[in-house]
């Protein structure tokens, strides 16, 4: 259950999301960075956008820690899953 809190400025968050999407497309096709730098920046932007949606639109920022844990627990499991399969050749 969300506790009582000040309402976030949803339009401002929408503007951030929009601008970051424009930045992503520009970064992917227009800006002269190396492939690895582009890859890193695109992933950072995508995770940042996803965080904004989760924290403010889904109100995760204002939820109790028990509810946050339900959403957070699969994330390390997801990373372990991907890493385990990526490193399959090693073991």
């Amino acid at each position: 259950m969300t506790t009582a809190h000040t309402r976030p400025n949803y339009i401002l968050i929408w503007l951030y999301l929009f601008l970051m999407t424009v930045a992503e497309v520009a970064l992917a096709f227009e800006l002269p960075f190396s492939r690895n730098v582009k890859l890193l920046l695109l992933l950072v932007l995508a995770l940042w956008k996803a965080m904004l949606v989760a924290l403010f639109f889904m109100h995760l920022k204002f939820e109790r820690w028990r509810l946050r844990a339900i959403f957070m627990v699969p994330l390390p499991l997801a990373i372990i899953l991907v890493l385990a399969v990526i490193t399959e050749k090693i073991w």
Partner: protein
Amino acid sequence: MTHATATADMMHPPVPAEPGSGVYSNKLGMWVFLASDVMFFTALIGSYIILRFGVTEPWAAPGAVLNVPLTAFNTFLLICSSVSMVKAYAAIADGKKYFLRPVPGKLLRDGGLKFWMLVTIICGAMFVGVQVFEYVKLLGHGFTPAGYRDGSLLAEHAVSDAVRYGATSAGLYGSSFFTMTGFHGFHVTCGVVSMLYLYSTKVLPEKYSAQDYRGIETIGLYWHFVDLVWIILFTIVYLI
């Protein structure tokens, strides 16, 4: 909770929490479902990453096969639908059940639950429509889940520029692309159908109130999650 000090700028939970879990059951159930969906999409995205970076042959360059401007517009639609969904949530939290209402001294009318929910449904339906259009175009150009169809436009391009079009990995590209975006599109479709159901059975008859709007919050969580997944998919599938 401080209901006594509630103002239009304060957010409050729709109903008192169930003992133990700290949230009401519908919401807890949705969060548990979303947690399982995180693992589902992780399996899909993880498989894509492994295929993409594990394959030794060249992969199709971003924008070579897929229409990025069209999909960027679709991403914009989904972001708009997410903000309209949260505005619907905020509207009913303030008890605004109406569609639009004039505000004295202001040019723009104030949107209520009915308005913002309808905007969300329209944006969601448009997203699905654009995705279907994209699929039809891609299939028409010869991009299928099995790779480039023999004799198609893309197959000809792949012969002339095998590196840019990832000629030898097209089968993996096609199957992973259609699987990931297809499952996401299915989620969006389910969301639109669910919202249409809620709109006709609960929103229009004004069954939600500032005291109980559990359905809006629960479907909102699902909808924002679908947006969140698309944000990741758009970057990984279309831009990288």
